[in-house]
């Protein structure tokens, strides 16, 4: 059991981090806070991938004459792509938030939803 925990501690921690991020994304009311949670969530997934690429006694995946074992380069490649995706999503999200703030003078979800609900009632009646 102890072996199980110790041999995979990187994964456990990255899962813990993911869950912290995911919680922030779902539970927080502030729009920017959600995006912060999203960042943590995604970066933790990246940590999970990178941990997967590590090989015991491996060296960095760069050609080296004295190297015996290289680390797995594939997760690195995938994560390079994913980081870019993540930052792009963040940028779009923040741009959206700026627009939302301009329109509603608020970045609190429940306040905005209240305003919207009021508007909807008005158009219906």
């Amino acid at each position: 059991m102890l072996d199980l925990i110790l041999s995979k501690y990187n994964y456990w921690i990255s899962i813990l981090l993911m869950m912290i991020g995911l919680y922030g994304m779902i539970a927080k009311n502030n729009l920017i806070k959600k995006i912060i949670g999203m960042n943590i969530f995604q970066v933790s997934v990246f940590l999970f991938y990178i941990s997967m690429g590590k090989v015991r006694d491996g060296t960095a995946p760069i050609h080296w004459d004295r190297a015996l074992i290289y680390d797995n380069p594939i997760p690195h490649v995938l994560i390079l792509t994913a980081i870019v995706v993540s930052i792009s999503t963040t940028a779009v999200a923040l741009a959206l938030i700026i627009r939302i703030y301009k329109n509603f003078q608020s970045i609190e979800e429940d306040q905005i939803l209240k305003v919207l609900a009021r508007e909807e009632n008005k158009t219906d009646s």
Partner: protein
Amino acid sequence: MIDIFLLMFLVIFSIYSIHTEDLLSSVIVLSAFSFVMTIVWTRLNAVDVAFTEAAVGAGVSTIIFLSALSRTKRGEEKRVTKKINIYNLFAALIVIFTGSVLVYGTIDMPAFGDIEAPAYNVLAPRFIIGSMAELGIKNFVTSILASYRGYDTLGETTVIFTAGVSVVALLRRKGGT
């Protein structure tokens, strides 16, 4: 041992970043989180990724956050209503569920650093050998990125382009072209 410490730092930073009500400090701590992550990745020999994260995650991302904050509001509003608590409980349930599925999946994973893991034995050898032999590129990550999985990179560029166009489309002011 230092790895454990770094990981603990990550946990603390992330919790603080989510928890604090001051958005500015939250962003700064997020940046620190990214920075520690960079160190962790360097220690895991993922040099290229660490570089990128340092530049993009800790750098650019923080700047974007800060500029967004400057255009909106700094503080998160305090609220102690009961309704939100039920909502939080619901969120916690989802998170616990997802987390437990993930943990379940981790049980029979190859151990950390296992050289026998399939992830290392199916595609990787070809890439590691082929990089020098087929392409003559020393950095395997570069060779995979640019050639074997070049289309991902094109996709990645497209994503950046999309984000750029989106930001311009969203934030373009009235009267501009």
